[in-house]
């Protein structure tokens, strides 16, 4: 794909102090379950009270992050709004399904039904900033954010938009946490983020969050140089793809100043990271990020937010993000200065 995709501004709500602008990585202490919950800001500064009362948590998170991102980018109305979400508004979906059962498919509240649709956040953002342009939501599990990013890059590349608001949001509900626990997605014993890489146990720590970016064709200090996705690849395929991806951008592994990796301490899948770093990045500084935000479908959006933060504070020419989601969806994102 032609062109550079400059990041004009970012915003994130996560388990970290990412929204306040006073971010320093913190290892949280979990009280009773392997779940890193987001630190929620005061939404009243961003959303009118009459709208706020009706919104579920993830809608408030998504809308507020999007508005803050636009503010940080100096963009009032974007040319397009594109998001990715693995699960959308889980809370509303569960509430709606419970009510169907409880009230035998009668007397159902309209609000959780309306809000349970995946594109609710996009609609709310569009209404809030009065944007009637391109509006799309991607729901592809561990590739949801990546597809939103790809769509944004394509719009910019084709000259169909000058700037695009692209982002992702996902929440974790008690019920979904329990369901994923049953299939072994999360570590069985309570494990603190500081222990997750040394515990040597299967499963990750669950997480949630929301991150937004304004991408544009107008130069800024950081740009996305490339994006590559792989579905259920073998280890060899991951390596071949990385080599081709870097070659395509005229780079060697040694040109990468920082590797941001999606290591989660999950013994079922961390071998992808071990093998990749051992073969290509033995001397490259590596920053894992899931001890900060946990594992969720769109965790790569937090990785991108973190990468931009690091690039704005450090002299890094090229940063590579490598993330995989339970062995199925693998992503490389290359950032340049």
């Amino acid at each position, binding site marked *: 794909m032609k062109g550079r995709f400059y990041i004009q501004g970012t915003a994130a709500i996560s388990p970290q102090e990412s929204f306040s602008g006073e971010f320093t990585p913190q290892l949280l202490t979990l009280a009773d379950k392997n779940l890193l919950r987001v630190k929620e800001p005061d939404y009243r500064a961003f959303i009118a009270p*009459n709208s706020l*009362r*009706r919104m579920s948590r993830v809608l408030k998170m998504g809308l507020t992050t999007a508005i803050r991102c636009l503010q940080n980018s100096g963009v009032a109305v974007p040319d397009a709004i594109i998001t990715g979400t693995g699960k959308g508004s889980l809370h509303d979906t569960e509430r709606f399904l419970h009510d169907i059962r409880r009230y035998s498919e009668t007397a159902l*509240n*309209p*609000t959780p039904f309306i809000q349970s649709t995946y594109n609710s956040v996009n609609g709310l953002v569009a209404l809030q900033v009065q944007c009637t342009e391109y509006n799309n939501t991607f729901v592809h599990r561990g590739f949801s954010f990546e597809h939103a990013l790809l769509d944004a890059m394509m719009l910019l590349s084709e000259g169909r938009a000058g700037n695009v608001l692209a982002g992702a949001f996902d929440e974790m509900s008690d019920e979904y946490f329990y369901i994923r626990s049953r299939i072994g997605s999360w570590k069985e014993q309570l494990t603190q983020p500081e222990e997750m890489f040394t515990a040597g146990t299967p499963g990750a720590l669950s997480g949630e969050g929301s991150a937004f970016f304004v991408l544009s064709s107008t130069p800024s200090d950081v740009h996305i140089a490339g994006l590559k996705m792989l579905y259920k690849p073998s280890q060899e395929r991951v390596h071949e793809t990385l080599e081709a991806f870097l070659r395509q951008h005229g780079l060697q592994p040694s040109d990468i100043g920082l590797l941001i990796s999606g290591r989660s301490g999950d013994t079922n899948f961390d071998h992808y990271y071990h093998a990749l770093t051992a073969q290509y990045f033995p001397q490259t500084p590596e920053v894992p990020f899931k001890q900060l935000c946990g594992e969720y479908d769109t965790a790569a959006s937090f990785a991108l937010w973190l990468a931009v933060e690091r690039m704005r504070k450090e002299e890094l020419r090229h940063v590579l993000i490598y993330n995989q989601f339970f062995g199925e969806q693998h992503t490389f994102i290359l950032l340049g200065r």
Partner: protein
Amino acid sequence: MEALKLKLKQQIIEALNLQDTKPEDIDDNAPLFGEGLGLDSIDSLELMVLLERNYHIKVEDPREGRKILQSVQTMAEFIQSKQPA
């Protein structure tokens, strides 16, 4: 009637998540939509559901609904009229 109106106000506050609103803040005769509580069309659907769930009253005719949902007073009178003598 007074007990019914108080209960109705509590149910409205809960159903519509009217944070920072107490039952005593809602005037019996104040309009629910536009002025007064400032509710909107989605809230009117929520109130229909409230009537169905809590009082087993189904409002089929939207024109009838408009009259019933004018205020807490009109809602309470309607509920009372539907209850067995």
